[in-house]
């Protein structure tokens, strides 16, 4: 875990140490990438610096001002949990939008590959695709509505004044379903004919599925960590 000292303008070592401790505790509760965490820390550090300056301007000593500033911000664990909840919702929306956008692309890639390999019309290959990975029908039934809820649920929930945790759960569910779907499609190739034309036709579809698989695993893991951090 990196150390935080984001207020170089203030020379009082005790004040800087107190604020650094606060930021350290806040950061410990935020399972984010280095860059995303640094952004949150910079904003909170600026707020703490403003509070510190306001108390000094009101006549407090630096030591008293930093105590007041930290007390004003509240318990860092509560703040990190509240931030994790909101950042988790933003992640959920991005996951939902990403899956909604890439779902048709993956579907078209696989159907097109099946059609090219067999030399038949694409619409006759939808059944072949489902037969190659029978679980895919269930995956679609779960992932499509879950991704739509995650993509739109956050904005609707905020605008209607509702809790938005549903969007995070929907994003996690959609991620898990898509991972299962991609694994099922790729592993289904073990039973596919092994002639070179067939392999070449599927290479593109497999690549797209593997890229989505790795991105979804990372994003789904992040949203689950944020969900846990939000308590």
């Amino acid at each position: 875990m990196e150390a935080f000292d984001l207020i170089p303008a203030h020379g009082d070592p005790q004040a800087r140490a107190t604020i650094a401790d606060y930021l350290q505790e806040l950061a410990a509760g935020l399972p984010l990438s280095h860059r995303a965490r640094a952004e949150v820390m910079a904003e909170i550090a600026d707020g703490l610096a403003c509070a510190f300056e306001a108390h000094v301007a009101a006549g407090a000593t630096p030591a008293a001002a930093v105590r007041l500033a930290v007390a004003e911000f509240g318990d860092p664990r509560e703040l990190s949990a509240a931030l994790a909840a909101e950042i988790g919702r933003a992640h959920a929306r991005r996951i939902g939008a990403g899956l909604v956008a890439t779902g048709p692309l993956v579907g078209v890639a696989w159907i097109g590959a099946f059609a090219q390999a067999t030399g038949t019309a694409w619409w006759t290959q939808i059944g072949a695709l489902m037969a190659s990975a029978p679980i895919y029908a269930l995956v679609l039934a779960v992932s499509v509505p879950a991704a739509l809820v995650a993509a739109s649920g956050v904005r609707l929930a905020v605008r209607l004044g509702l809790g938005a945790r549903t969007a995070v759960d929907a994003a996690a569910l959609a991620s898990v379903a898509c991972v299962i779907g991609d694994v099922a499609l790729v592993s289904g190739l073990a039973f596919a004919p092994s002639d070179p034309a067939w392999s070449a036709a599927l290479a593109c579809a497999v690549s797209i599925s593997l890229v989505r698989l790795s991105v979804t695993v990372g994003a789904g893991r992040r949203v689950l960590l944020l969900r846990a951090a939000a308590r």
Partner: protein
Amino acid sequence: MTAEALKGHLDGLLLAVLERGPAHGYALIEALRTSSGGTFDLPTGTVYPALRRLETAGLVASTWEKGDGRQRRTYELTGAGRRHLAQQRESWHQFSGAVTAVMDGGDITWRPST
């Protein structure tokens, strides 16, 4: 007034403050304190998750500025935020008017049956 008592109203209050112009997190909480005559004295930390929520909902947008050796995130209302604020304001006026009418025992035509 506690953060719990303000639950459900904080988003609208922040949008109302931002209607006056762009502001950073600490300036927003200070404006809430000042505008309410000190009644809305919330933990400063509560404003940051609320701003994240509003930004995710597309009601505010943020930009980063650099100065005084530190970075500052400034928020401003979006078009959607202005429309949402107008709706919030209208429903609040209806709600507060109705509560006041009942609390003050205004034009009461109903009488309890005996």
